[in-house]
């Protein structure tokens, strides 16, 4: 009974957040200064009629959220027939609209881009998690030794390294050995099978290395402090008193309990995977969601911006929900009141 209440509350909260995001998403970009049509219309010599036609084709001739003129005349239907209601209507139909600048379907654009980002950030994260946890545990296990100090220092150093700078350094070091930009050699397609994937893997080396080294330290530092904290708990002393050896204690009691904060961090990171690493994608010209978003901001491409932000919001909300629920399962102390 308790548990299902907890479940419903968490899911309800996630849905409510999503709804707020959907509304917020629409207005956020329209508050920005600058007229998107101005950026679509590139020539001063275009006639007023053509400009109007462009406005109409993107629905930008309608008022943003409420037609005051129509409202005064008592025409309620026209009053709410605005850009905002059109946005909601299309969203309900699963239609994210058409990009202002490329006129491509936003859903298709996102589909094409998202897996590339997931591959890049996914591989980088998995490596970072594994290496980070191993090093973190090692440092905690050998706390106070030279090994601990050097792991800690390396961690702090890489953690404070600016992504852009670090990426460029790796690029210069790897120049000539690994591809500097892009995801695949032009002309290769997934249908080419093994050759294609080998080529993608080759292009992944530098950006993944950057991501792994930068992300690793966060996992490492948190894992280390978590293990250190658990090791000072009373139940560890109890286990010692029961006569268990140090390794057993470490494996059965310390590790499991120290994984709890890691679960949250990992789940949250998975949520942010889709948002990717704008900076790494930019340094290594990786054609993912991050770069799409960056370009869309520059061009005031509302539909693309709304689409990417919605996708990000959904993944973050879902990942948070998963983290909350996992916690409920894994940690008996998280019992709803």
């Amino acid at each position, binding site marked *: 009974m*308790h*548990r299902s209440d907890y*479940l419903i509350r968490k899911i309800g909260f996630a849905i409510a957040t999503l709804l707020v995001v959907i509304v917020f998403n629409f207005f956020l970009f329209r508050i920005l*200064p*600058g*007229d998107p049509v*101005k950026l679509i*219309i*590139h*020539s*001063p*010599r*275009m006639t007023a*009629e*053509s400009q109007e*036609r462009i406005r109409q*084709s993107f629905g930008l001739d309608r008022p943003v959220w409420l037609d005051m003129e129509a409202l005064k005349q008592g025409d309620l239907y026209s009053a709410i027939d605005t850009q905002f209601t059109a946005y909601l209507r299309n969203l309900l139909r699963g239609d994210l609209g058409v990009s202002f600048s*490329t*006129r491509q379907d936003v859903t*298709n*654009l996102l*589909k*094409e881009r*998202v*897996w*590339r980002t*997931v591959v890049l950030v996914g591989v980088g994260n998995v490596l970072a998690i594994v290496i980070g946890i191993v090093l973190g545990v090692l440092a905690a296990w050998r706390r106070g030794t030279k090994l601990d100090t050097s792991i800690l220092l390396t961690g702090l150093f890489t953690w404070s390294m600016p992504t852009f700078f670090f990426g*460029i350094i790796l*690029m*210069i070091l790897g*120049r*000539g050995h690994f591809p*500097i*930009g*892009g995801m*695949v050699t*032009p*002309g290769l*397609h*997934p*249908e080419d099978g093994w050759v294609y994937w080998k080529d993608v893997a080759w292009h992944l080396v530098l950006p993944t290395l950057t991501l792994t080294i930068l992300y690793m330290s966060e996992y490492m530092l948190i894992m280390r402090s978590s293990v250190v904290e658990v090791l000072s708990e009373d139940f560890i002393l109890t286990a010692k008193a029961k006569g268990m050896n140090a390794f057993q204690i470490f494996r059965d009691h310390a590790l499991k309990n120290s994984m709890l904060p890691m679960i949250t961090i990992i789940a949250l990171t998975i949520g942010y*995977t*889709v948002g990717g690493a704008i900076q790494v*994608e*930019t*340094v*290594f*010209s990786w*054609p993912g969601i991050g*770069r*799409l978003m960056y370009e869309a901001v520059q061009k*005031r491409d509302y539909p693309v911006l709304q689409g990417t932000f919605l*996708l990000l919001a959904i*993944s973050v909300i*879902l*990942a948070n*929900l*998963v983290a909350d*629920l996992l916690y409920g*399962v894994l940690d008996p102390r998280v019992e709803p009141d």
Partner: protein
Amino acid sequence: MRNKFMMLMTIFVLLALLLAACGGGTTAEPEVEAPAEEAPVEEAPAEQAPAEEAPADEPSVLDVGTTYIWDTANPAFGWYGYTIRYMIYDTLVEEQGISNFQPGLAESWTVSDDGLVWTFKIREGVTFHDGTPCDANAVAWSLNWTLENDIETFAFYIYNFSEIVALDDTTLQVTLSDPVGNMEYLLMYVWILPESVWGEMTYDEIMEFEDLSAGMGTGPYMLKEWSEGEYLILEANKDYWRTTPAIDQIIYHEYATEDAMVQALLAGEIDVVDTVPSTAIQTLEDADNIEVPIMGSTTIDELIINSHEDGTQPESLWDPAVRLAMAYGVDKQQIVNVAYLGYADALGPVVPASMGDWHNSDIQDIPFDPVEGNRVLDEAGYLDSDGDGIREFSDGSPLEYRFYGTDDATVARIMEIISDGLMQVGISAPSTLMDEDSLIALYPAFDFDLIYWGWGLDPDPDFAMLIFTCDQREEGGWSDSGYCDEGFEEMYVEQGITVDHEARRQLIWKMQEQLFNDRPYIVLTNAKNIQAYNSDRFVGFGTETGDILWKAALLQAKPVE
């Protein structure tokens, strides 16, 4: 136990949802890849090409780095990737160098005495990439189609064409509603597209067309493949009418930053970089196998002085003495040295020297001379009565101006140089940086005093003059200074209908002189266009157009044996 099970199930479902959201693209992705029908063609040209041309077995491939390929293959709404589009399509007249034209699909042309009837001799034996002929009838169809559908990217160049007919297979006659002074320039922008692709489409279908066949023309290269945000492949058109392209394939690679392109060039991943940041020039020049052509451009930057009578600028900004003193206070050479590392020229008139005889070379630029600037202001009665270093207007208000620019590191540096210089003549104009759209949003209301801005001008001087006309101050117009003057207006109309080059040049010179004296702009510099290529792999690029990737320049390039 059951609760726990339910909970776990829910989590799995959510995880699956998340993964589906992320991984959805994998299934959809083959759709977005190059159309299936392209696949069989892929291998063929590579094998055929060397057979005709001869020695090497390997087809020559030029790899080009660029920061943005294009927005769409559809020329009806694609505003980017012009150098690529010109490789695919032809125009009646082509650009050979900056403000210098050569015949394209039209071999020659004549104009009637009243300037209203133009007769073009259309080249014989030209075909589109699909083999359909491109004779005078096809050209007439294309121009009429452009006007009928009001193709937003280039129809406005020929709005003045009232009748377009093919008299026979090689003769095209165009009747204008008013004479024009820059026919070659206008025609340089109007692509000739095939009826076989566009003929059956309604306006909406044209605007939704995404197929690669949108990239079919008569040009030296054919569009083979495009992966959005990644790369674009062009294949040589061995039947091209002017010459057989020496390079079999051109691959454009999209890089997110200029620095990455420079590294890729050094690593040998690409052969050409389309823009080189000035900070990288030295590194590239030091490399043995890299050539760094430094070419003329039509890029100018300027200090805009709000000249709109309904603008919010203080009254003192209208005083010619204040404007003159400001000109004395701007150290253009320091801007060239610091911000452009020397790769620019200080400029006086709006039209840069790279545009040939359109540039008014009689204009003597105002030098950086704070002493003279101070003298001008002293004489005009602007004194610093409270000793704070800033002069005051007759009503006691200090000469303090709002000065805006975009938030970019180089722009910030340039604005700092300007602010420092103005301070030396007793004018305070501390810079405020904002993002580009916020800045553009200031224009319609003319709610500013000074702005730092720049233009990439058209090769014809018309555009550089257009931005100072009154109509351009309306909503949606391109006037950023708010300048409006009756005499200037008359000259603008006059130059537009003057067919004789010399007569038109004199008008354009006069207009530049007027702008120079009225100072809606204090023009600052004309930047160089800098590109780089691997000379171990390719040689011979033309530099006259200021862009080695421009059709006329690229067609001269050859692979090194």
